[in-house]
């Protein structure tokens, strides 16, 4: 309380500008809010992400290369996030996911809730028998794409490649090496409920499936 009092006294003496509070404590002096429910400004993130896309776009030849760059930007976040989220789990469930399903559930629930404040909308296994190594995480409205309209000539681009990079980082960190790509599936017809619907295609390396099969037997 003494702080508040002194601050008021100083401000009444002399009109200070907006930028510097009279008690000398700027936003940089305050500790970060690191609680589990801490929220960040979506507008600030939107501008930051917009700049990230522009930065990635600056020296690329094609759309694939741009997506690759966004993917690379997300990868280290995924690696670190896996450790952080496991550490925050209660001690008895603090093991890293050991099966593909457990890993994907971890991503769908824990990673998504931490990053976007909600779970991913759906989890699917590829129904095509030729590609048993493919799984899909569906997000109806990716937060990173909230304000992004991709121009028509770049229609294959999905900026959620950044999120795909995060997923890839989590998979790699958990020793399930995979390739993750983001694909837009919505927006084909008018008046659709989820025009920005995005599928994250997770394609695991063959050795992961091999190991999974061996584990299943034992």
């Amino acid at each position, binding site marked *: 309380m003494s702080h508040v009092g002194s601050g008021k006294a100083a401000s009444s003496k002399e009109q200070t500008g907006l930028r510097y509070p009279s008690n000398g404590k700027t936003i940089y002096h305050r500790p970060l809010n690191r609680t589990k429910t801490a929220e960040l400004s979506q507008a600030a993130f939107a501008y930051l992400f917009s700049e990230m896309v522009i930065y990635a776009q600056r020296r690329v030849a094609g759309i694939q290369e741009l997506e690759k760059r966004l993917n690379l930007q997300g990868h280290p976040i995924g690696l670190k996030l896996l450790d952080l989220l496991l550490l925050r789990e209660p001690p008895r469930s603090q093991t890293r996911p050991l099966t593909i399903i457990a890993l994907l559930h971890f991503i769908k629930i824990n990673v998504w809730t931490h990053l976007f404040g909600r779970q991913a909308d759906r989890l699917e296994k590829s129904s095509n028998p030729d590609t048993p190594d493919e799984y899909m995480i569906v997000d109806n409205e990716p937060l990173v794409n909230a304000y992004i309209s991709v121009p028509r000539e770049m229609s294959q681009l999905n900026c959620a490649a950044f999120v795909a990079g995060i997923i890839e980082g989590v998979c790699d960190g958990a020793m399930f090496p995979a390739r993750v790509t983001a694909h837009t599936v919505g*927006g084909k017809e008018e008046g659709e409920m989820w025009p920005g619907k995005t599928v994250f295609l997770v394609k695991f390396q063959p050795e992961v499936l091999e190991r999974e099969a061996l584990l299943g037997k034992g």
Partner: protein
Amino acid sequence: MSVVRIRLTVFALIIINKAGGLIYNRTFHEGLNKVSTNDLLVLAGTFHGVHAITARLNPLKHLQGSGVGPGNRSSTSSTISTAVPGSTQPAPQHQQTHARPEPPSGLEVLETENFRMQCFATLTGTKFLLFTDTTQANVDLTMRRVYDMYADYVMKNPFYQLEMPVRCDMFDRKLGSYIREINNR
């Protein structure tokens, strides 16, 4: 009873950039006369000029020119008179940063028997023109919402280049559904 049903309608939206170029136009109501793109461009440029003129026209003498509000005029003029000519004048500068007067806004509303045009100029000089029915209420609110959407879906879009025509699907979609909601109310 020949009561004409009062229609609340938003007819069209035009966005003009700070150089007077047309960057967005869209009509929301059928049965309007078609205006060619060329005419729209001329309209945007003309309006830009008229707006600039109206911002300078001011019948109140004490507001003229300097743009200093009536409240701090006396203090500013006294500092100027005591300052040595040729020397820098930090005092007025200081005053300006604290109590910056509202800049003149120029033309805000234009009303005819058929429509009402509301203009909203942002601080950066972009102008939003909303053409509505004469009886349309709460245009300020609608304008505010349109500006919000512009700030969200145009300015936060990494593929939009400043001062260039707005081609953002998301903006079109959100704006369309918002105006439809108003027009159907």
